[in-house]
């Protein structure tokens, strides 16, 4: 079970990175609007106008 001595600190490190990334994203307004972004990707423009 000594592998845990490596794996647990590693998990904590990854966790720290994940939280830091989330903080960065939240402060940059990535989560200010949780509704529109989910739908935006589904909406394409119409067929380009003026082409046959």
């Amino acid at each position: 079970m000594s592998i845990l001595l490596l794996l647990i600190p590693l998990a904590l490190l990854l966790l720290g990175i994940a939280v830091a990334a989330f903080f960065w994203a939240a402060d940059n307004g990535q989560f200010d609007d949780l509704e529109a972004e989910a739908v935006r990707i589904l909406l394409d423009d119409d067929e380009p106008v003026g082409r046959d």
Partner: protein
Amino acid sequence: MTERCRHCGEPAGPSPIRVATDGGAALFCCAGCHAAWTWITAAGLARYYRQREAGQPVSVDTERFSDFALPDVAAHYVAEADDGSATVSLHIGGMRCAACVWLLEKVAEQTAGVLSCDVSFATHRAIVRFDPTTIDLAGVLHALARPGFQPEPVVPGELSNAQTNERRHALRRLAVAALFGMQTMMLAFALYLGDAYGMTDATRTLLEFASMVCTLPVIAYAGAPFFRGAWRGLVERQPGMDLPVALALTVAFTTSVLATFSIGTTVYYDSVAMFVLLLTGSRFLELAARHRAEDGVAALARMLPDAVDRLNPDGSVERIARRELRSGDRIRVRTGDTLPVDGRIVSGQLGVDEALLSGESRPLPRSVGESVCAGAGVAAGSATLVVERTGASTTLAEVGRLLERAGHQRATTRAFADRLASVFVVAVVLVAALAATVWSQIDAARIVPVTLAVLIVACPCALALATPTALSAAATRLARDGLLLSGAGLLERFRPGMTLLTDKTGTLTNGRPVLSATHALAGVSATHCRAIAAALEAESEHPLARAFVPFAAGVSLDAPADVRVGEGVCGTIDGVEYRLGRASFVAAIAGCEPAQTANAESRVYLGRANEWLASFDVCDALRADAPASVAALRQAGIKVVIASGDSPTAVAVAARELGVHDWHANLSPANKLELLANLHAAGESVVMLGDGVNDAPVLAAADASIAMGGGTALARANADAILVGDTLTPLATLADVSRRTRWIVRQSAAWAIAYNGLAVTAAALGLITPWMAAIGMSASSLLVVSNALRLRRATADRSSELTVLAERTV
């Protein structure tokens, strides 16, 4: 079914414009709508028509945009950056779904001079960066208004910044609780397995130590608000739910830390982390609801025009920003304006529409010497006003304060629930203390585990899940029927025996006058009389005039009609003078008045020299499903009371048709609050249904509230639920769903309490090992969740019949 305009959704009228398209012929009510449609499709944005809700009328007041071309006004809103670009924050009215965000951004992208446009659906805000040398603020507004939105510049104020900050911090806390909480759970799982299959002490200590490191940020960062709240509760001598939370967290965490350093046996890190995560999640949802309400109050101020025509002492007229007005200034107002300030008329006369403040649906005549209020619309006439009160001292601002006070009143009701909770808290603490005392006599080593078991089981998973899962399932079910739920209070309050206080105009009725009957009084046919009336009213802004619009048929006036405020209109057709309006006004040319019959909500007369031609009954018709819905509510044991700002005759007619005996007319917002207070004093539980600004304070003060989707943003912001699609039928569904929800919550809670009661007894007797408790807890939670999901079924099942029986017998 009448054919509707492809662009605006209004009836296309007798002579629509027909255009052949790929999907068959399209109809347009006017050239303007046709042009808008052409522009939207040519820009490749035809998806807009497919995305928006069917039949949503589009009316955009673009006239006031030119006010934003004034440098003084624009400077107030626009921030200039160093690189020469300008930025403005806009509130976008009329956004319904996320597709609107897409449309707005595309439109902005295609506008010359706009550098970027960020639209947020959550806040209905857009931040537009533009090049002031190419386009001005008014141009930006015009561009965004073209698809049918109502952009309003807002001062990039502290409110929205504070909200954004608060939201981001709440999100950070949620993320910390979730990420570290998950890690703690994984370690806890290993510890449980260790209990079952055996584990060396060294490994156990390592896992416990790692758990502690993971739980530390959860409790210290994500859980910080609970400790602050508990401390505040203690200082103010009114302990709320934060106190037991903080207490349980402190005890559980301290014990676990002691156990980790071998001064104890069991760790509770997983309980701590999950507890904080669940609570932080529900607080986050509360936060979102509160922000929506705050936006509503801010919306009041946006109703006033930003620029006004000031009459200088030398007689010249100058267009200036509203903020520069001082009391004593003279201003000019015309038909179609919204009054910017409270003032007194010094010359001219006005028909003012005070529906915003009083709910009165008809314009009231005001002449020299009389006062008018900010926020009222000018339906007819023009006048010079002397400014009496501006800004925060206006009547409109007073409505805003009423609204805030009403919000606080509701907070007081909530504080009462908190006081009940503090009784519960004290009980739990007492029981835990008792258990500790008893066990100190039996086995001192087991004091801590037993005490903790009592404290933790007092806030168990299944019990915590019972209400939120049932509520979210009920909300999904109701949303399918067109009722959007934003607060939980409504489902709790909507039960037999409660009172539904409802507004009339725009709520029970369509809010649009229609011609209900024509009585021809002379030899002229009813059809021709209607055509004459339509021609006379064609140019009128009077709300009743709209009732005649569908009957226009080739009759035209020799000259524009002459509108007399509070009297009627007169005009000539083929050299003959016609008058349409009150009996006394028509009698001036037609001779003595004909016999009047009662019962008509509003009656207007048409006459010419020495002859009465016809009388028209105009009424604001009830919604088609109103009688059936009211009957269904009554059957569900709910009392319906009408509270309207409209005239007694109009309300009486509606009340009779609906079979409602308890009605009140001529109520101002303050009167409505008084009525509500009386009902509360009589011990009634009151749910308010309304649509206008005048209802907003009552919507906020009632125990729970429902707003019409077509109503003002302010009314919607203060409601617990919104009826979309302008129909009342979902109210009957609501009565049924709320009944089933309460039943299911009770079932689940009963189960959870029974389970936890057994669990705490068993745990106290040392019969339960941690892994058994873990499995039991998961199974219990699963049962509660699947029970709640039954609510999503379309039809009422047997449980609802049982509830009816149960609630009738209680």
